[in-house]
């Protein structure tokens, strides 16, 4: 392909998954020419991922039906196998083979690249993404950012004309994400491949793009042009649709009004169950009304610290201690150690939201999930239904009230898991990546509810990579890289 020719052409293309009543994409039309760098935006549920899968030729006839046409290099997308490379969001589910070299070679093998040519291509691809480990290096020992660059190398070794990236940096810390972006930039300028990126992190990708295409809620194109054109022409419309824009302004930082202390971590060493210590000698006092954002590189132990503060994982050394305010004496018995509390006591004192929302779902419908939390928090009778309905409304989940939590989209699941903790109004709330995968509207709602919880005298601790959330919180705690060199390995 030479620069300037059209590569990806959609003409009134739409897709309907088997079980769904309506199209995921309601007739998308665009022409992308070779060498363009396209940033594909859209609010959640606008069918961005479906569109990428369509371009990659991964939508089979048994999964649903299409309307219109979608071609790559003039051929039906599904005939273009090997011309399109695809890097997805989750670093853990992309490596197929156990060794780095073998994994990069996997795509080459599948497309019948002659054996003698495979290994030079593998070396070249790894160099291009700057992954400098031996070919025998175990893929499981790579960090999240390295795994994403490995996936990129695996796609590159196939020498694709088109490279599709579906939120390639969503799971990464800022340093890892920047390296992935650098690699993509190098690849784009050296191979002249057409690049289509779906991302929410505009700070990284806005300046990379030569073109921005925005999909509306029913999947049609609502804006298309250079980044500057899109911003000037459709700014307000995009903002209303909840699309992250580079000039997004979050709420002002909360004034840190340290009220009475609730929870102390004294010289705490945190470690996963049966694992090596990841953070040592952490001391922290959490007080009423505080909003603390905790940041740090991937694998530094943020999630482990969250579980420890949540009274779910015993610290390896040091102690987690509740104040009298958090744990009032019960029949004159005093117990200030959260790990020994009963499950029901813990739930109303320290609420936890996990990194993977699906770990926390225990009921068959969204409504019942929230009702359960309200019940254990002793919100009874008509009050309970009222509280649940209000929370559903604020989180934009009213339409999903009777859906199974596992059937929700990633962003919706996250909101539901945050909501189950918020509705119980615990005195301390520990959240792991609460704003992950949200559009700017749902982001504002989550952050504002967390603010209200603080105003009512609770404390919020949020583990996050989200710079906007750090800005909104009153207090920031930055963790350094893990204590042990094996921190990110498991």
């Amino acid at each position, binding site marked *: 392909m030479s620069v300037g020719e059209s590569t990806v052409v959609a003409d009134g293309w739409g897709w309907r998954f088997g079980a769904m009543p309506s199209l995921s994409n309601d007739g998308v039309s665009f022409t992308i020419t070779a060498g363009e760098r396209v940033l594909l935006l859209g609010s959640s549920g606008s069918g961005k991922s479906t569109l990428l*899968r369509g371009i*990659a030729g*991964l939508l089979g006839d048994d999964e649903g039906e299409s309307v219109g046409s979608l071609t790559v290099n003039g051929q039906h997308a599904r005939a273009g*196998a*090997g011309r399109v*490379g*695809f890097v*997805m969001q*989750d670093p*853990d*589910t*992309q*490596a*197929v*083979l*156990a*060794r780095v070299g*073998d994994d990069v*070679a*996997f*795509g*080459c*093998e*599948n*497309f*019948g*690249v*002659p*054996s003698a040519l*495979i*290994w030079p291509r*593998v070396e070249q691809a790894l160099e291009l993404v700057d992954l400098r480990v031996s070919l025998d290096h175990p893929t499981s020992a790579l960090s999240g950012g390295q795994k994403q660059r490995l996936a990129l190398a*695996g*796609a590159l070794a*196939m020498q694709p004309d088109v490279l599709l990236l579906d939120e390639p940096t969503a799971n990464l810390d800022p340093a890892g994400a920047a390296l992935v972006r650098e690699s993509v930039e190098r690849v784009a300028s050296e191979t002249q491949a057409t690049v289509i990126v779906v991302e929410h992190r505009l700070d990284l990708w806005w300046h990379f793009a030569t073109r921005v295409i925005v999909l509306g809620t029913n999947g049609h194109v609502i804006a298309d042009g250079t980044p500057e054109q899109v911003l000037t022409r459709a700014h307000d419309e995009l903002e209303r649709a909840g699309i992250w824009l580079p000039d997004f302004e979050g709420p002002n930082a909360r004034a840190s009004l340290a009220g009475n202390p609730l929870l102390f971590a004294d010289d705490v060493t945190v470690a996963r*169950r049966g694992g090596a210590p990841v953070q040592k000698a952490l001391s922290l006092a959490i007080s009423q009304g505080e909003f603390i954002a905790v940041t740090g590189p991937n694998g530094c132990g943020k999630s482990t610290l969250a*579980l420890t503060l*949540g009274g*779910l*994982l015993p610290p390896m050394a040091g102690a987690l201690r509740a104040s009298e305010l958090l744990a009032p004496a019960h029949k004159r018995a005093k117990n200030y150690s959260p790990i020994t509390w*009963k*499950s*029901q006591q*813990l*739930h*109303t004192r320290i*609420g*936890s939201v*996990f990194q*993977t929302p*699906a*770990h*926390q779902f*225990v009921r068959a419908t969204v409504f019942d999930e929230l009702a*359960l*939390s309200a019940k*254990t928090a002793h919100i009874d009778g008509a009050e309970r239904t009222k509280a649940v309905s209000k929370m559903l409304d604020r989180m934009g989940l009213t339409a999903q009230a009777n859906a199974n939590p*596992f059937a929700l989209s990633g962003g919706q699941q996250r909101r539901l898991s945050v909501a*189950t903790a918020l509705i119980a109004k615990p005195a301390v709330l520990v959240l792991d990546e609460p704003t992950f995968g949200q559009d700017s509207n749902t982001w504002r709602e989550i952050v504002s509810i967390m603010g209200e919880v603080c105003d009512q005298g609770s404390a919020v601790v949020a583990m996050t990579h989200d710079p906007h959330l750090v800005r909104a919180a009153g207090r920031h705690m930055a963790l350094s890289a893990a204590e042990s060199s094996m921190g990110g390995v*498991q």
Partner: protein
Amino acid sequence: MNPLAGFVTSTIVALALLLTLSPAAALFVFVVDISGLIVFVAVKAIPASRLVSLLWPLGLMAVLSAGSTVLYGRPGGEVFFTWGLVCISQGSLYLAATIGLRILAIGIPAVVLAAVVDPTNLADSLTQLWRAPRRFVMGTLAAFRLLSLFVDDWHHLEMARRARGLGSGRGPVAAVARFGGQAFALLVLSIRRASALALAMDARGVNNPSPSRARTAEWKLRDWGFVTLALAISCVALVIAAFEQAQGGAF
């Protein structure tokens, strides 16, 4: 050694032993196994400590099976001791020795092979030498690596139930209900991951009809040697068994 040669060899010997009920044949194969292990350790192919950690559960299994057969096995020949259902006789001792030795003779090569075989190498051999379907083999290979995430998931599911105020229900009913809920959640999570992985594999063309090879799996003369050796060992074992039977060894 090609991993498939390893599996062919151990299967041949195992089949031969399953055909007989002879403790002498099992003893013979067991001695061959142990000699093989000694050679492996001597040429530093595998450290002795690793062998011990691999094989002790098998040893325990053999001792337990043999032990219960001594006590409860079908009586025959001279009876040494009875107490209720327990009956130690010449016959039960003989049967116990056979069972213990057979478990070890068949189990040792299987356990060691499973531990030392490189999965990528095995997958290459299966697809290239035995023409096994590539998608299936590669999918299984990739799925095995997801297993390590299971344990972590399970711990998180447990902690999540505690965090949601559901952790302290007591009694067997609550425990079973909790286990069922967690198992369901684990299933959903694994299906999610598996379909993401399948999509990633599809994107890299695992279904393409004419793949090439980055690595070549080879079946060498040496591998024929191992198979021949296995056949020879099996023949000797069968001869020993026949000889023992002719002597009227079985009870």
